């Protein structure tokens, strides 16, 4: 900013600051340096979250995979809204037809008026017909005009397989790129710390998706990628401060500097993430069921991202430092 050199030419401003000023008072949620010994609790925290991740992955295994939406699983989805509240059993019985094999009906809110009907993927040809069969089934049972077809989606099995590969690749590439960027801007230790924290966040979010039995579809992957991008924010803020403090304080141990840095930035870490979590909370509660799992992913990812910057990224930096010392 060119503006900084202006001080000398404007004596009016230069006159005042020497006067003794009372210490400024700010609205604060968290004091500038709460003096919490974060690293002391790190082993417990790390243990607890990896335990959760293990539980989540166990639940993925238990369910025989994530709750894949039709983007991944293939098949047909019909969402319909009835004029009158209708029982899910009625909808199911309307769809028990010889031309429809595996049908899942789910009440998606709207006071028992809105249902999501999924026909699991089969071969290409039967897929084509099943949307029509669902429509016919509903029409024969409830009559034209008593319901409204909100959307129909049909995805062939090939798309799902392609998507799986692309999604994994995208998340991995994003994680590595973030790690590489941080390594480039700071140093290798911070890069590794950031990458480990990101992997942790992605795994944690997937675990939460599985435990909450949320649908895993294209937008969920978009959510995961966003989490990867956003979760680095506070890692950057903390790393930036660690670097600054490392320059200022030559005598303190790295553990003390990390602790101090986390404390000093705690207020902004919590507030910046707080605003992001607030808006995703609004999306999750009010955004409707089309983006429900997307908002859920963001919400969980942002929360765990805040935590991981403190408890995963920084301890990794410390660990690598101790390793390096041990070897030297």
């Amino acid at each position, binding site marked *: 900013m060119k503006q900084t050199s202006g001080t000398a030419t404007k004596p009016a401003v230069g006159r005042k600051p020497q006067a003794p000023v009372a210490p400024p008072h700010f609205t604060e949620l968290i004091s500038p340096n709460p003096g919490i010994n974060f690293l002391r609790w790190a082993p417990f925290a790390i243990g607890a979250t990896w335990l959760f991740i293990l539980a989540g992955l166990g639940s993925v295994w238990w369910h025989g995979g994530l709750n894949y939406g039709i983007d991944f699983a293939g098949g047909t989805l019909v969402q319909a809204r009835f004029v009158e509240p209708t029982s899910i059993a009625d909808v199911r019985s309307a769809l028990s037809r010889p031309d429809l094999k595996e049908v899942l009906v789910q009440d998606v809110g709207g006071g028992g008026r809105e249902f999501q009907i999924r026909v699991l993927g089969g071969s290409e040809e039967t897929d084509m017909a099943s949307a029509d069969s669902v429509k016919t089934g509903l029409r024969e049972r409830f009559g034209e005009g008593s319901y409204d077809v909100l959307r129909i989606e049909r995805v062939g099995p090939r798309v799902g397989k392609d998507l799986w590969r692309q*999604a994994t690749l995208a998340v991995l590439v994003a994680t590595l790129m973030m790690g590489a960027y941080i390594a480039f801007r700071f140093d290798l230790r911070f890069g590794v710390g950031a990458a480990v924290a990101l992997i942790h966040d992605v795994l944690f979010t997937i675990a939460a998706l599985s435990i909450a039995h949320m649908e895993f579809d294209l937008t969920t992957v*978009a959510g995961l990628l966003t989490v990867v991008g956003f979760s680095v924010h506070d890692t950057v803020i903390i790393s930036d401060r660690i670097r600054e403090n490392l320059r200022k304080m030559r005598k303190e141990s790295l553990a003390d500097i990390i602790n101090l840095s986390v404390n000093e930035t705690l207020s902004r870490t919590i507030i910046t993430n707080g605003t992001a979590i607030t*808006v995703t909370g609004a999306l999750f509660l009010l955004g409707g069921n089309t983006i429900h799992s997307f908002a859920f992913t963001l919400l969980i990812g942002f929360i765990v991202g805040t935590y991981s910057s403190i408890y995963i990224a920084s301890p990794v930096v410390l660990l690598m430092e101790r390793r390096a010392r041990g070897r030297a």
Partner: protein
Amino acid sequence: MGGSIRFRALLFAALVVAAVVFVLPTFVNPVPSWWPWQQPVRLGLDLQGGTHLLYQVQIDAGIDNRTDQIGRDVESALRDAQVGAFTVERKGRTLEVRLATPDKRAEVKKVLQDRFTNLTLTESAGGEAADFTLTLNAREEQQLRDRFVDQALQILRNRIDQFGVSEPTILAQGTDEIVVQLPGIQDPQRAKDLIGRTALLEFKLVAEGPQAGTPQKPGPGMVVVPGRPGDRNQYVVEKRPIVTGDMLTDAQVLPGGVTEGYAVDFVFDARGAQLFGDATTHNVHRRLAIVLDGVVQSAPEIREPITGGRGQITGRFDFKEAQDLANVLRNGALPAPLKLLEERTVGPSLGRDSIRQGTISFAVGSALVVLFMMVYYRGGGVIADVALMINLLLILGAFAAFGFTLTLPGIAGIVLTVGMAVDANILILERMREELRSGKSVRAAIDAGYERAWNAIFDSNITTFLSGLILFQFGTGPVRGFAVTLCLGILTTMTTAVFLTRVVYDWLVVGRRMTTVSI
């Protein structure tokens, strides 16, 4: 120095005015005719309703077709050269030529060498193996592959244009996929029939006499073709068409009688008219099958030579069927068949719901953030909030100006931008507080706040921008809309949350001689 502030302030004022110009048509409808920008923000299919179709161009099948076609060219070239009896057969990607007698071998070789330079010719000594085999060059095949998608795209554009959908999107994606988006189309069956139809039209003589064989065992050079649904006949026709659809120049719907329905009238080009005229002259009283995509539409008797270069297809079509048929014939056959991979239809009521829910979550989310900033950072918060409003205006302005498509995840991206845009302000304000606590003057605190927070702001936004780019690369449709919003939001956030607020502080400190700051 005041001049620099004025300059930057004017720059922002110009940006805001431009954004208002672009955004107004989205909210005021209709906008007055003198307004310089008339186009509202484009809504994605998930918000306005419509159909999204994803096709795969079956390139391998297309290459087989092309090889068949070359095989027919080889046949007619050899027939013209009068080399005696021979057969041409396709085995995979190669054509095998067998001769009845070896005495014209040299002549056949010369014809094949001279006329089919894009094929690799190999010769064998006879016996069980074919006398000659012709294979498509690797380069030739690659060129075909590259052309198929472009050709299919062009043909689909023409077909859909004439189908009458407002603002369709037809794009190639990946190596062999085509995305078709049809806003406002709820029942895509007719559109799918129109798009998915290969529209290969062939005129073939119906076989007769002893060499015709039976439908179960057709004679040499004959094939069996089924009739239309409702027509149980199996037609034995000559393998070689006398004329094909690529020799048509025009096709129009003709009203027919009550019983026979509408008909499609077509016009041949010069070569087609010549071939058709000759064939009908030599084959009066034989039946001519009109074969469309491997189905006999009708097989009328040739009553007299047809030399006028015009013809008619009848098949009890209703008006729409006849109209779509004329459409596909006019625009030509697809070089390769298409396979429907994915289909998504969103009704208008779901679109309206999504807009409403998106707007509500936006309103609630931003109200909370704006209020928090005002309460927690007081004056500094108000400045950040103003920057946020201008930020949102710029995002929408960019959407309208560059014709980006707003989707439901895109709206979510805007909501998210609200939560992330203030992050930059929070970092700056927290830093300013820190500097003030250490006893710095207001002016020094502002300078240090911006300077020291800049690194962290830049790094954190770059990383999100990178993941947005990856997301754009990965996603399609609505997800791309989200990626666009995310990246755009970062650019506008950098502009407003950092540079715009700085102008305000500079103006307050330098222009208004402010010595205390409310943060």
